[in-house]
């Protein structure tokens, strides 16, 4: 891992095969949104469970107030109460664990916001790491909220110790804002971070989708005509061709035509651009194979 991290959200990990893979860190906003969605889901699940258990208790024919009565009814209430306590514990602690251990590495909230967890550096994401990052959530989230809200609730009565505690907790809560990788304490301990999980479709190869042979005959550019542009312009042209918007095609075709001093027939801008793109790419890739890169039109 590089020791100096850039200020933007682009990071690189090296796979064990030695290939650099770019990653984009999740923004703090999307992580907060994911957490919020998860909390809503957890509270909903807790409420549904509670209501179901009360409904079952009602079906057995007992009221919650009558726990003291001995006999089968009170045993049934006890059993339900145990189920309830264990369910609440699991919702609070196992929700994140269960979902983040899956192949997506994301809770439902993270899936909605399109982010997932990953291991920092070259190591693999381990079960222990997922456990470690979620076990710390308690002091990062639930404890500060309880502490700070109680400090605010008691208002002017709060003593110095109370405020000190609240500030101390706020440090944990706001930890992601104090480092460039927006790690929370759990991420630090577990060696993980949260990244965007992009998923894109593969477009058609341009030299196949274009009627290449015909285009080659229509326009053959000289090496000097191709030498005016570099990789940056090539990729801009690729984007324009893939988006396939009439006005943009016109503009770009005009610009190229002016630059290389070569007119193209009316309504032939797409063929013109495609053949220029393919020949420019062929030329630049040939240079690439020989170890010459031309980053953009300003490069020598």
């Amino acid at each position, binding site marked *: 891992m590089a*020791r100096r991290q850039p200020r933007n959200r682009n990071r690189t990990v090296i*796979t064990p*095969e030695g*290939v650099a893979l770019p*990653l984009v860190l999740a923004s703090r906003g999307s992580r907060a949104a994911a957490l919020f969605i998860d909390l809503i889901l957890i509270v909903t699940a807790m409420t549904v469970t509670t209501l179901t258990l009360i409904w079952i208790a009602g079906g057995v024919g007992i009221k919650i107030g009558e*726990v003291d009565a*001995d006999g089968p009814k*009170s045993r049934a209430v006890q*059993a339900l*109460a*145990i189920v309830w*306590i*264990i369910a*609440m*514990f699991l919702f609070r*602690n196992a929700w994140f*664990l*269960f979902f983040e*251990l899956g*192949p*997506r590495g994301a809770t439902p909230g993270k899936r909605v916001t399109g982010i997932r967890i990953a291991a920092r*550096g070259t190591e*693999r*994401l*381990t*079960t*222990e*790491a*997922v*456990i*470690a*990052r979620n*076990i*710390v959530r*308690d*002091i990062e989230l639930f*404890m500060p909220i309880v502490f700070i809200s109680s400090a605010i609730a008691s208002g002017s009565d709060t003593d110095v110790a109370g405020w000190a505690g609240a500030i101390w907790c706020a440090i944990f809560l706001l930890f992601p804002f104090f480092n460039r990788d927006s790690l929370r*304490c759990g991420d*630090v*301990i*577990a*060696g993980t971070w949260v990244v965007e*999980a*992009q998923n*894109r479709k*593969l*477009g058609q*190869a*341009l*030299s*196949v989708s274009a009627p*290449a042979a015909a285009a*080659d005959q229509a326009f053959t550019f000289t090496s000097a005509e191709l030498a005016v542009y570099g*990789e940056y312009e090539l990729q801009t042209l*690729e984007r324009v061709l893939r988006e396939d918007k009439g006005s943009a095609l016109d503009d770009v075709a005009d610009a190229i035509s002016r630059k290389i001093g070569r007119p193209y027939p009316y309504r032939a801008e797409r063929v013109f651009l495609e053949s220029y793109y393919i020949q420019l*790419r*062929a030329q*630049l890739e040939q240079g*690439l*194979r020989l170890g010459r890169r031309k980053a953009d039109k300003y490069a020598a």
Partner: protein
Amino acid sequence: MNEPANASLLGRLGGWFSPAASADIAAATSAALRSDRFRLEREGEWKRLEAIVSRIERGRLRGVSDEDLLALPALYRTAVSSLAVARETSLDAETLLWLEGLTRRAWFIVYGPRAGLGDWLLRFFGGGWGASVRALRSEILIALALMVAGTIVGWLLVASDPDWYYALIPGGMADARVPGASRAVLLRTLFGQQDQHGLAVFAAALFSNNAQVAILAFALGFAFGLPSALLLIQNTTMLGALLWLYHGQGLTLEIIGWLSVHGTTELYAILLAGAAGLHIGRAMAFPGEASVLDAAAAAGRRSAQVMVGVVLMLIVAGLLEGFARQLIDNTAGRLIVGTFMLVLWTVYFFVWRGAGKSA
């Protein structure tokens, strides 16, 4: 240009990578660009990888055939090497970005968590738990020393000035158990509660509460271990004060029996949680050769296993506290249960080494 010769060479290379792809290669020769031919020759394998990855991501692991699962690592490596080659030879931004994305998704899966929760638990009980506890041996000794010190301090404080008792013991617990209480009153808190109702609920509630405390003791290790140490001392001063109170009325053995039923398990669990917290704190304060972040990550992963064990121990402790303590109404029986649990945990952690896995 010598394009035909190159094309056939590429075709042969492609053939080495995947004998079945010759149809793709035939189609690829019609592409105008070398880099596009490179892409078309391999696209079939990439798409197969993508299909497998998508199915696994959607959580349908059972829908993936054995053949596909076996092919996954090889397909992943093909994609990685294709990416490395494409970066040096192709200027097709679309393909590069897509291939990067595909490799990343496959990397997450191929190098993802090796075991699901079930498999992991099997390994955990079959020796992984004990090994992780043994790895924290020095921290466990430190935490044990802190707990013993806390107990002694609690005893001495209350012995020097009984007013300390009210400062150490939370109000809810100190109903009948206050300094100056008669022997009979104290005895009643220890025995004769087996007609209580709702023991099971009590046990579950105790577990839930204790587990959160233990998780806190671990999580606080993040602040260089100091809060963990304080929490250990604070909890054991209570123990010391309680011991002093009953000692004053000659009930020392009885209170130890009353506590030991669940206490040996519970204190053991708190000991391990505190040790795990201290382990992280120590790794962050003295990271050694590694960076602070790396050291903290390594320590966190090591102690996370211990913490899962701690939660399980607290379930056992909650059950013992809720049932066994109230149902066994004599000191000898309580001491036997408590000692048995203590020996059981110690043997499981430190003597038994698991099935064929040396630590």
